[in-house]
């Protein structure tokens, strides 16, 4: 077990390097450092001289992977790739190409992203569990059929519709919450209500169906029949025993999502003007700010690896038959 853990952690290193290589290739096939400089320096009266100076200041004048001009060992190390990768691995994100401190921005923008993601996750978990439990309890009734229909319908509606329609109705026509914006602290609640509810609705349909399947499967097991035979009520069996046993696979599914919460929701953030990490990333892509893009990809893959590890561990917890080596 611990050997497995150690091996997985060691895996993370080459994976992160691989991710960095891909980011580099993708980014620099598209953009040359000259393009980036022009983007930052503005449009008018930009001379090649200014561009060269800009590149030199930020180290973008170095070759990407192989420095033929340097000597010996430096041929491989005095490159843009090695220099920026090494810094990333020490979590020194440095300053963006636009000149701002990336670490500071990340700290500031993590809050709003989490302020949406965490409530969405918890609320939809509670709502979907509750709904699925009731439906499992009333299985086979007309309400069950109706709920199945509603769930499939909810799944089939584009998430964009929830966002566009929700904002139009709730904020514009009914004036219940501000249309967009954000504030820090308690004042953020009124800005978060709508995006959180919408985020919950988007995830509700598939999750209710999935949880219901898990509940029904659990109810077919031996111990449930035993409990029934002993005279326990249907409700008690369902809400106590089945729920407890079904929580393991459900929580396993939730664990995977945890790290990705940090990255935020792109469209929601843009539409509700919430200054989270999702809109930060998209802005950076549009502004071709390589320093930020690289950092976000790095963090994203780091979190993904952590999530994978957690999932594998939860597999073991959930099903002892799976062997990890």
């Amino acid at each position, binding site marked *: 077990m611990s050997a497995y853990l150690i091996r997985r952690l060691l895996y993370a290193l080459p994976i992160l390097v691989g991710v960095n290589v891909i980011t580099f290739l993708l980014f620099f096939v598209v*953009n040359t450092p000259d393009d980036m400089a*022009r983007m*930052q*320096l*503005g*449009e*008018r*009266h*930009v*001379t*090649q*001289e*200014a561009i060269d*100076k800009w590149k030199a*200041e930020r180290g973008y004048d170095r070759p990407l992977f192989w420095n033929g001009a340097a000597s010996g060992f430096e041929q491989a190390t005095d490159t843009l790739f090695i220099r920026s990768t090494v810094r990333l691995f020490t979590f020194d994100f440095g*300053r963006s190409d*636009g*000149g*701002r*401190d990336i670490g*500071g*921005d990340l700290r*500031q*923008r993590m809050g709003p992203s989490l302020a949406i993601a965490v409530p969405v996750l918890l609320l939809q978990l509670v709502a979907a569990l509750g709904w699925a439990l*009731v439906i499992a*309890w*009333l299985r086979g*009734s*007309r*309400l069950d059929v109706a709920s199945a229909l509603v769930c499939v319908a909810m799944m089939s509606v584009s998430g964009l519709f929830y966002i566009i329609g929700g*904002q139009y*109705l*709730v*904020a514009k*026509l*009914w*004036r*219940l*919450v*501000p*249309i*967009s*914006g*954000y*504030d*820090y602290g*308690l*004042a953020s*609640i*009124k*800005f978060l209500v709508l995006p959180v509810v919408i985020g919950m609705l988007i995830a509700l349909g598939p999750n209710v169906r999935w949880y219901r399947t898990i509940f029904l499967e659990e109810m077919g097991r031996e111990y449930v029949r035993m409990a029934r035979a002993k005279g326990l009520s249907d409700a008690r069996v369902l809400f106590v025993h089945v729920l407890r046993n079904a929580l393991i696979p459900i929580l396993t599914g939730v664990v995977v999502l945890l790290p990705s919460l940090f990255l935020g929701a792109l469209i929601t953030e*843009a*539409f*509700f*003007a919430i*200054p989270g990490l999702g*809109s*930060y990333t998209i*802005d950076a892509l549009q*502004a071709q700010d390589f320093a930020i893009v690289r950092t976000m990809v790095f963090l994203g893959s780091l979190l993904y690896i952590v999530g994978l590890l957690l999932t594998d561990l939860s597999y073991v917890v959930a099903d002892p038959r799976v062997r990890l080596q």
Partner: protein
Amino acid sequence: MLVVASSMIAACDGIWRGPWNNPYPAAEAGANILYTTFQERPKHLDPVSSYSENEAMITSQVYEPLVQYHFLERPYTLVPLTATAVPSAIYYDAHGQTLPVDAPDASVARAVYRISIRPGIRFQPHPAFARTADGRYRYHGEGATHVPVARAPTDFPAADTRELKAADYVYQIKRLAHPRLHSPIASLMGRYIIGLDALAARLQADVSATGFLDLRGYDFEGARVLDDYTFEITLGERYPQFVYWLAMPFFAPVPWEADRFYAEPGMAARNLTLDWYPVGTGPYLLRENNPNRRMVLARNPNFHGEAYPTEGEATDAADGLLADAGKALPFIDEIHFMLEKEDIPEWGKFLQGWYDISPIAADGFDQAIRFGPDGRPELTPEMQAKRMKLAVATQPSIVYLGFNLLDPVVGGDRPRARALRQALSIAVDIEEMISIFSNGRGIPAHGPIPPGIFGHREGTAGINRVVYDWVDGRPVRKPLARAEALMVEAGYPGGRDPATGRPLALYFDAFAFGPDYKPLFNWYRKQFAKLGVQLVVRMTDYNRFQDKMRTGTAQIYGWGWNADYPDPENFLFLLYGPHGKVKHQGENASNYASAAFDRDYLRMRSLPNGPARQALIDRMITRVRRDAPWIWGTHPQAYSLFHAWYANGKANMMARNTLKYRRLDATRRAELRQAWNRPVLTPLIVAGAALAVIVALAWRTQRRRSMRTPT
């Protein structure tokens, strides 16, 4: 527990007092705060490198150059701001002899601007000026006491000010040459200001990667301090447009203390730079700069004071724009720029009263505006009911379709290619384009110079005879038959290329993406198809587009130009041969070159506005109309809509420092917001009821089930 609960309730009460959808703290309700928006964070607030519109919105309120544009008067005129008078040049020949103003260009060896500034102007309070009891700067250099947690200048406990000196202007001019600051106008100014390029070379040799480079120690011929309130700028040739540059933040004063302060180690890593926190003398100071949410301008307590103008255009008095004449500026206490990434929420919030002013989004247009019987825009009854007001101004800019004159098909001075260009100019129906894509918010261009700039002509004298006829007192686009005849002349009868027998294929290079561009490009294709020409649109990103322009591989392209200053030179130079994009890296993207035009351009440049200049401009414009290097396109109009409580809303397309003139009636705003934003509770009740019904249904189902014997 009880305490927590009650404080929660108190907090919630604070949040939900007033309209539910109030995006601001309830405490700000009656405050004299202007709310407006920004879409992306400004990149540079350092006046040496700030050039774009969204940056100028901030820098122009904070920094004060020597001169400014008069708020009300049109055509745009310069008036002194910190200078005692609008600067003018004295010309000298190579031997140092003074020359008359109208001396020929070739004889001018030096143009000297001697400028005096007003005494008693002070900078905003800033820690850079703070000193200890023994007179040392508190936050500079060795022994400086730093505040390690400071993330903004306001986090420093001490702040002070200093009087504005002529040296601050000279210091900023030297900063244009600073190798680390990348001023976008360094190379342009290097051509004019004597010794600027040499200074740049010297600085390049002395500069280190970080740390303070004390520019005061460098003597420099181009800008010299004469005394505390007087300095001189020396140009190497006659450049009458230079005075317009003096109105831009590039030539605003920057105190050396600020540079020194921000150069302290660790400052830049905490975003403490001049790029983020400007230090100026203007009516406002930047108190909060959080590009992730909002930027806040607050009244500068040290502002020297300025009075609202007492004169304006003829109609201004009737429009109530002179009601505040002579009153002290600024009127508004704070300006909050809120981050708003999408147009739709911005427009929605404006209608609800949360923003005071809004540019009209093209699609909100029909809701807000209609055209009156005389063809002038007016507000719809719904908007009038909200007592909104509208300001319309033609922008000093042009959006055009250009032909690359180096291209073998559409380019060159051959009569055939010219006929092709003229035919296409007729076929592309700019009027329809303005109607569909800008909802009528634009004026068809008849040449490069927009209305409001000297050289533009109205009426029959101003029309483009190549494309239009003058019928019944207005210009009418020539019939398509004329364009078809021109196509025959060009050698493409019916739009077919005789060499291949297939329709002539032309290539349009565009750099735009987004929802609105697909219809626009389809529309272009339709226009070209009128002549049987097949238009292939090659979309690309802006970088690649610029590459194509630089290498001259584009054929037809769409671009625009927004004036730096209100002078015809700033438009005509876009067609000046030696500014050719491909050969000279200039701004003449069509690579138009005509010896006669270039000769006239050089003479026109140094003439003062007057009949002689107008005659020259007319000749130049007639020539470019015939050569048709551009399909002249549109002069866009800016419509801005503002609420009843917002006063002095006149649009000024040249001045950016106009926020100081605006006035708000915050009490009235609070009342109207309250009235407009009553929440609609019915849907909540309906949703609650529906939920209750479902619960009841579930309950009944369960009851029924338990009645039956369990199977």
